[in-house]
């Protein structure tokens, strides 16, 4: 009887301690991430996730590739509405207002409130932190951030008699250089365009934002309730895009984001405007000498900041939040960020990443990677307001209608501004 009792208590005690130990800090993390560029992003994220999981055996983490940025946001929000959100996700930095409005995310500053956490938060580039903060709180942590850059084919420059170390810096230079670079065949059809700027969809709107910044204005402000779509800067930017097609520097009509890098690699265009996140892809596949420069600007250099941040969802337990914070700290640590930057070309979100030996070697081997970083000084946040998807659609419609020749720039922009104001008036 006593033996049985002692065995029972022993069993009971072991069971209690095991469950106790398990529930103290075990968390199952589900992590949604998007891929918006041609890069071995999925493998790299999986490798980094596995590294963290190996170092933290009490937690489990499942990295879920959820498509491109828009699809990942849709997926995360749908899951959150159904009561099963991922614990942590990388989503567009500009989705901040949508996520706040739908009340699904938690300010990181609420979880990371110790002194060293606050120091950690202040260690990120301010340019990247600017669109992660709202009403005094930090809602997100930068992860895969970028600016678009001007990639150009140095061999093509040499062929056209241009200096391969001097990419165009202004819009007028772009047109001049572009005309020299365009190659036509005997039938008069263009076989190689001077440049290629995506104009369709969200990618087109992003690059358009850069044009506007280079003319000294911004498309939206940090309040989230103002959209400046009908300004002299936007008009000048649309007219620049039209001029490029008129002067036969760029293909007329809408240009897609997705196959721009491929067109560049196949020699169908001598230069392109696309995210620095395509850098590794170009490096691996380019069969010609290539360089990277600032985006040619209207009145001076200008670029939009883009990319995705880490968000932690609200519908999570204490343990999950701690584990998520730890995971985010690991993924943005200098070593992980170095691996991520080298594999893709994204700009590392923290200055101290550039001090690691891998990044120093990388910067020496591939100086093109530093251009996006240097351009940060002239970059402004991407188009972001409440009801971003709906308001951005007005801008996308305006750009698309103008480049396909279906509307005049002035009237298209006025229409877009009207639509945006109607939606944002509810928030004022």
């Amino acid at each position: 009887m006593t033996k049985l009792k002692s065995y029972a208590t022993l069993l009971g005690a072991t069971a209690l301690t095991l469950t106790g130990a398990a529930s103290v800090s075990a968390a199952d993390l589900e992590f949604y991430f998007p891929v918006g560029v041609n890069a071995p992003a999925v493998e790299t994220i999986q490798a980094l996730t596995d590294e963290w999981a190996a170092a933290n055996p009490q937690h489990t983490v499942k990295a879920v590739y959820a498509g491109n940025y828009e699809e990942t946001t849709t997926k995360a929000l749908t899951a959150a509405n159904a009561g099963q959100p991922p614990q942590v996700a990388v989503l567009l930095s500009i989705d901040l207002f949508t996520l706040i409005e739908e009340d699904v995310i938690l300010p990181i500053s609420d979880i990371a409130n110790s002194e060293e956490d606050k120091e950690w938060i202040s260690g990120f580039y301010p340019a990247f932190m600017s669109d992660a903060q709202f009403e005094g709180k930090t809602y997100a942590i930068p992860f895969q951030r970028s600016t678009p850059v001007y990639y150009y084919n140095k061999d093509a420059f040499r062929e056209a008699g241009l200096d391969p170390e001097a990419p165009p810096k202004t819009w007028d230079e772009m047109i001049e250089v572009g005309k020299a670079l365009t190659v036509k065949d005997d039938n008069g059809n263009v076989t190689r365009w001077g440049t290629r700027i995506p104009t369709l969809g969200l990618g087109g709107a992003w690059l358009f934002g850069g044009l506007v910044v280079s003319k000294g204005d911004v498309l939206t402000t940090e309040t989230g309730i103002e959209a400046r779509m009908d300004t002299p800067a936007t008009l000048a930017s649309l007219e620049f895009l039209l001029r490029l097609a008129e002067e036969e520097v760029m293909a007329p009509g809408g240009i897609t984001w997705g196959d721009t890098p491929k067109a560049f690699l196949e020699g169908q265009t001598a230069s392109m405007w696309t995210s620095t996140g395509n850098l590794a892809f170009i490096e691996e596949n380019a069969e010609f000498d290539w360089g990277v420069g600032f985006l040619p600007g209207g009145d001076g250099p200008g670029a939009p900041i883009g990319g995705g941040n880490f968000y932690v969802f609200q519908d999570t337990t204490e343990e999950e939040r701690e584990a998520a914070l730890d995971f985010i700290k690991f993924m943005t640590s200098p070593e992980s960020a170095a691996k991520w930057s080298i594999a893709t070309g994204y700009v590392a979100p923290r200055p101290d990443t550039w001090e690691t030996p891998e990044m120093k070697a990388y910067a020496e081997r591939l100086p093109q990677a530093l251009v996006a970083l240097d351009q940060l000084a002239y970059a402004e946040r991407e188009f972001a307001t409440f009801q971003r998807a709906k308001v951005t659609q007005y801008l996308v419609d305006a750009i698309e209608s103008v480049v396909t020749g279906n509307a005049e720039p002035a009237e298209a922009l006025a229409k877009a501004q009207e639509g945006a104001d109607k939606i944002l008036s509810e928030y004022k």
Partner: protein
Amino acid sequence: MNNRLSIRLAVIMLVIPCSLLVAFTHYPAIQALINSFWNNSSSRRPSRFSGIENYQALMEDDRLAQILINSTIYALGTIPLAIGLSIGMALLVNSRLPGTTLMRLSFFMPTMLPMIAVANIWLFFYAPGIGLASQILEVFGMPSINFLGRTDTALASMMFVAVWKEAGLFMIFYLAALQSVPTNLKDAAKLEGASALRVFWDVVMPLLRPTTIFVAVNALINAFRLVDHVIVMTEGGPNNSSALLLYYIYEVTFRQRDFAYGATLTVLMVCLLGLLAIVQYWVLNRKAHYQ
């Protein structure tokens, strides 16, 4: 005793399918109708009863007007083309030409592929300069056409992809129907001196009418249901030129998170499809000859 048992059994056996039908068809439709009368709720603005405001917005929506025109052109283009092509393919495969098995396989292959895969293949095909279509045009000395980047070609490109995908399936239906046409009828017509074309048009086609109705209904459903290629290839196309109604509903509801307006559009779509179904059955059924 037996009677009562069988009625009870019947009711029990009906409960599960009926509850599924209600859960997945009737309940969502009614819920959409209810939702269309309310406004969106969010942490910044609470939901309020807005009556027919959403429907007024529907009437004033320029994008919707463009999209309805697109959907009409799309339906009117793909349905006859798919029917015609599938009849042609069925006749070809049913004939005594060599290689009909290979033809049958290759015509049916597109149907087996998921639409997302098809859309990605055609995305490459249509890419200006580097895609297969442009390379073919180059061979003929013509400039490459920006199929997906021009408002006048985007919708037609989408229609092409849809017809390519569904014609194979319709061919199978027509093949089965062709093989069940009694040969004595065709022989009788030939004896009377009718040409092959007249035999086909006056003898075979009327007998195929039930299949044509079935294929037409399927093609109409597909014209509204299949928008995967729009999502993958053009996202509504340059300036909404290739946007279709279901794509717009998806974009408004899930991308723009405007659930109220999405519900309004859903009600519109349900009414539209109901109307079309009535028209189709009423008009076509009168002339059908069922054996």
